[in-house]
């Protein structure tokens, strides 16, 4: 029996907006899907409420959702940001998922509640371009500061050159190919 499920049910009950839903309820890790505007309320509850006592943030992961159409082109469906929390009390782990639109994805930061959230948020921002509103320090974390674009977006176009370095290189065998 999955003992994260009752916690999620409880969280769902306590949310003010009733639009949340539990997905993947029968899997190992059930996820509560909530709306972007409710994220701070939910996380605050998880952090402060002794019933949850989720003091540890495992990770924040991002995903660019796409669907391949019949003619082979990609249909961009927006972004998904997944928060995974753990409790040091009974090692229960729960996940909260937020879906963001394709254009100008933005969500409230939680790095005032969890100190470690800042690096995760920077990573999601760096690679996917999700904007974390009111973040204390939202810079790129892995790529150079003057990098253009967010590479893990499915519609990412690599720049032709970065600081004078071409980003493509012809295969050395092309120069000696016999035609």
């Amino acid at each position, binding site marked *: 029996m999955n003992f994260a499920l009752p916690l999620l049910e409880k969280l769902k009950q306590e949310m003010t907006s009733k639009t949340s839903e539990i997905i993947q309820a029968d899997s190992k890790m059930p996820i509560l899907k909530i709306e972007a505007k409710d994220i701070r309320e939910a996380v605050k509850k998880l952090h402060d409420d002794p019933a949850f006592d989720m003091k540890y943030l495992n990770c924040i992961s991002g995903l660019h959702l796409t669907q391949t159409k019949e003619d082979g082109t990609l249909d961009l469906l927006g972004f998904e940001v997944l928060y995974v929390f753990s409790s040091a009390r009974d090692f229960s782990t729960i996940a909260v998922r937020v879906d963001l639109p394709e254009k100008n994805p933005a969500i409230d930061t939680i790095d005032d509640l969890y100190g470690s959230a800042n690096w995760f948020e920077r990573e999601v921002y760096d690679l996917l371009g999700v904007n974390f509103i009111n973040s204390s320090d939202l810079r790129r974390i892995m790529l150079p500061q003057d990098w253009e674009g967010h590479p893990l977006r499915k519609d990412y176009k690599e720049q032709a050159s970065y600081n004078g370095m071409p980003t493509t290189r012809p*295969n*050395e*065998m092309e*120069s*000696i*190919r*016999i035609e």
Partner: protein
Amino acid sequence: MIIYLKNIWETYATVFEGMAITFSYLLQRPITVQYPDRMKESVPETLPEKYRGRLMVDTELCTACGLCAKACPIDVIEMKGGRAEGKKGLRLIYFNIYHGKCMYCNLCVEACPAEDGEEDEHHTAIYFKKNFEGSSYTLNGLVEQFIPPDEARRRLKESEEIAAKRAAAAAETTKNSEAKQESDKPKDGGDV
């Protein structure tokens, strides 16, 4: 005070022990293998059986099927096969391997269907030699051409000629057969 004296004693005792260890190493023979010249046996002989050194191809055994080039995930192999006079299957026209990029993943060897029937580690047409030397002053020097360029050009020309000849012959036969069909059969539009 006792701790103080004990600290001093321990300092001397441990330094003494450490120096005994290093001195005992000073009296031992170094394990260094003096690589290029001062060795009893060459390094490739001492390597394990399945060591992957330089990627090589046996141009006689190769059937020019191109499976290795398809299997390669990073386009290290570039090859082309063509017809030859007096040979039944395909013959290599050129076969280039870019050692500077190869990641020694063995996928090409697994894909290779041409085997010489022996059970040694080099039983496929494309195989890994145990030799690992191959530095170069230029990146271009890391591309190995197993068929020399002149020979490759000659073979390409030959295969093109044969292909042209065969195409002409094929065109002749199809023309003949079409003409035959047209003359033989009446038009009824329904073909199978």
